[in-house]
């Protein structure tokens, strides 16, 4: 864990808010499929973005490097000095099994595309680091690159998954990275962005990632300052100036480090109101009261719909008073999550079931289960 003096908030630039469109699709039997569905769906809700940000997260796309951390690194302004520093840093802390430029189609006209490189690495620990778990090791190194190496940012750092994002409509990003031609995965999430504060910043597009967690987010987190300051105490530094970052780190903290299940984490992010807690029975009431008391700084306030994914799981969640929309649908082994039902219908006109959960109720999609149907009872 890096310890450093936190600068005064006076010096920190303003954060972005997320007016956007989201879509996610997962095959619950683990079968990998191409990107056409994600691209078609996000094109259908094109008006939710403004062409200044789009991104995809794909799980299961590097089967031959499955056991290595796939670091997608972006070098702003194609800064070669930054690349040299990152190469040196990674060589010092990792064994680089393979690295190459992420293939792109240069004919697609995008605003100032950075150099995008991927490294497949395994941690190389010093004797005193033997006790540190691999995941912690990688998080610390990623934080270091983001904070200390100018013009270098790590887009994704998980095993057998990758994030592709940038400034442009999502279908343009897909074309640029040739997603529908080159990759197959069993979870695809995609995001179309409408930024107001940082229009040209590639790092600000979604999905946001730490290890194999990705978050795509629609809304604005009005409790960002509170959430960020709490997370800083645990070593997560928000360097990408978009409020979605706190969601990604909060999910990592609660689910990976503290081992809480998604159903509990959803109740931390979007807890029920006190007057409803008062009507619950003893055990439940105590649980919710204690969760709100202990995790008050992680209550995510303000409108949001998020789709969070990691290996074997994808879940969708809205804020406690459902200020942003979400629709879930299932067809055979496929489960869809989307900002608008029409996007799902455009991809799959016939579905077995379509439902919309209440605010604060997660739709949890797990590999080899029908867990996503649990939320139907509390949905419309």
């Amino acid at each position, binding site marked *: 864990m890096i310890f450093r003096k936190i600068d005064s908030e006076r010096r920190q630039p303003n954060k972005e808010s997320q007016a956007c469109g989201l879509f996610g699709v997962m095959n619950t039997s683990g079968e990998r499929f191409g990107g056409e569905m994600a691209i078609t769906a996000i094109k259908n809700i094109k008006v939710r973005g*403004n*062409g200044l940000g789009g991104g995809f997260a794909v799980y299961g796309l590097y089967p031959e490097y499955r056991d290595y951390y796939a670091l997608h690194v972006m070098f702003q302004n194609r800064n070669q000095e930054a690349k040299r520093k990152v190469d040196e840093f990674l060589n010092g802390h990792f064994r680089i099994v393979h690295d190459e430029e992420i293939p792109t189609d240069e004919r697609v006209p995008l605003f100032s595309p950075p150099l995008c490189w991927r490294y497949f690495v395994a941690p190389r620990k010093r004797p005193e680091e033997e006790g540190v778990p691999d995941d912690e090791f990688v998080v610390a190194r990623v934080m270091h690159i983001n904070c200390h190496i100018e013009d270098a940012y790590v887009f994704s750092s998980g095993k057998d998954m990758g994030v592709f994002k940038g400034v442009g*409509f999502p279908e343009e990003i897909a074309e640029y990275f040739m997603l529908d031609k080159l990759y197959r995965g069993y979870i695809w999430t995609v995001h179309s962005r409408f930024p107001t504060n940082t229009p040209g910043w590639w790092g600000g597009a979604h999905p946001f990632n730490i290890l194999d967690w990705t978050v795509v987010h629609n809304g604005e987190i009005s409790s960002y300052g509170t959430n960020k300051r709490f997370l800083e105490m645990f070593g997560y530094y928000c360097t990408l100036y978009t409020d979605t970052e706190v969601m990604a780190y909060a999910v990592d903290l609660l689910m990976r480090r503290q081992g809480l299940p998604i159903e509990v984490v959803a109740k931390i992010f979007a807890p029920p109101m006190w007057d409803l807690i008062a*009507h619950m029975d003893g055990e439940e009431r105590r649980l919710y009261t204690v969760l709100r008391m202990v995790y008050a700084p992680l209550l995510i306030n303000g409108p949001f719909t998020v789709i969070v994914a990691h290996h074997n799981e994808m879940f969708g969640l809205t804020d406690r008073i*459902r200020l942003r*929309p979400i629709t879930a649908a299932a067809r055979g082994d496929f489960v869809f999550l989307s900002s*608008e039902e029409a996007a799902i219908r455009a991809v799959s006109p016939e579905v077995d079931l379509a439902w919309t959960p*209440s605010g604060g109720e997660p739709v949890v999609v797990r590999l080899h289960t029908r867990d996503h149907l649990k939320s139907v009872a509390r949905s419309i």
Partner: protein
Amino acid sequence: MKTGNWKCWELKERESEGMATVSARLGLRDMFMDGVRPVRELLPRLYLNGQTAEIDGAGLKHKEVNDLVREAALKGARKIVLRNIYGQRYIGTRLYLPARVEIEVHSNPGNDLGAFLNGHKITVYGNAQDGVGNTMDGGEIVVHGRAGDIVAMSMRGGKIFIRDNVGYRTAIHMKEYTGKVPVLVIGGTAQDFFGEYMAGGIVILLGLGLGENERHRAHYIGTGMHGGVIYLRGRVEPYQLGREVGVLDLDENDWQIVRRYVDEYAAHFGADADRILAGKFQKLLPVSKRPYGKIYAY
């Protein structure tokens, strides 16, 4: 040593020059209007046969679909069937015309279906999304499926029938004035903030999908209500109602109103009106016209 905090700050200065040049070169990107084709190019999608028109919406943008609908209406169509609709918005809005048309939508209209509707009739054979009948002035909307959030928001007249369930903030700010009373009938159940800030109108929630003793799941029903009436069929607990709501039994007048609109609902969706009317109904009325008088110090 550079820290993360400074990187983004300086980045903004550099990129703003680049952004300006690119915008000058590529033009400001407008996701709504970009690539919209003129109507004459789209005419092949419109099959006009006397007073009936059919439009194939596959791959059409929001404005393009509505351009064709208006074109059809201006050319004399009185019944317009839309096919392959996936998410196109504002269907029925751009018809501020003296003639009255009937629109059929197959099958998934986008947000703001019938926003500011000017007396026309829209039937949807599929699920609708958010904003159905947003600030609707008159006409009728019938949805053979469910609808999303803010159905009938600020609705001022006309009728909406939704066969299944609806989402949050249904009938928020609904209004009535001098004989113009909007009506909303929902067959299933609703989510929170049902009838928030109602100032007029008639809302009927039938709860047909609920089990024998299963209660509606909405909370804060009628919060801020200061006009209008909600007829609720099914069970709710007192704590689910907003502070401004009082619960009463229906009188003969109420039953006439409920019977009339339940009959219309049954006719649209092939339901059993008698079975519906045999259920337990309650009337929700605002307790005061000025619920917030005591909060402010003058």
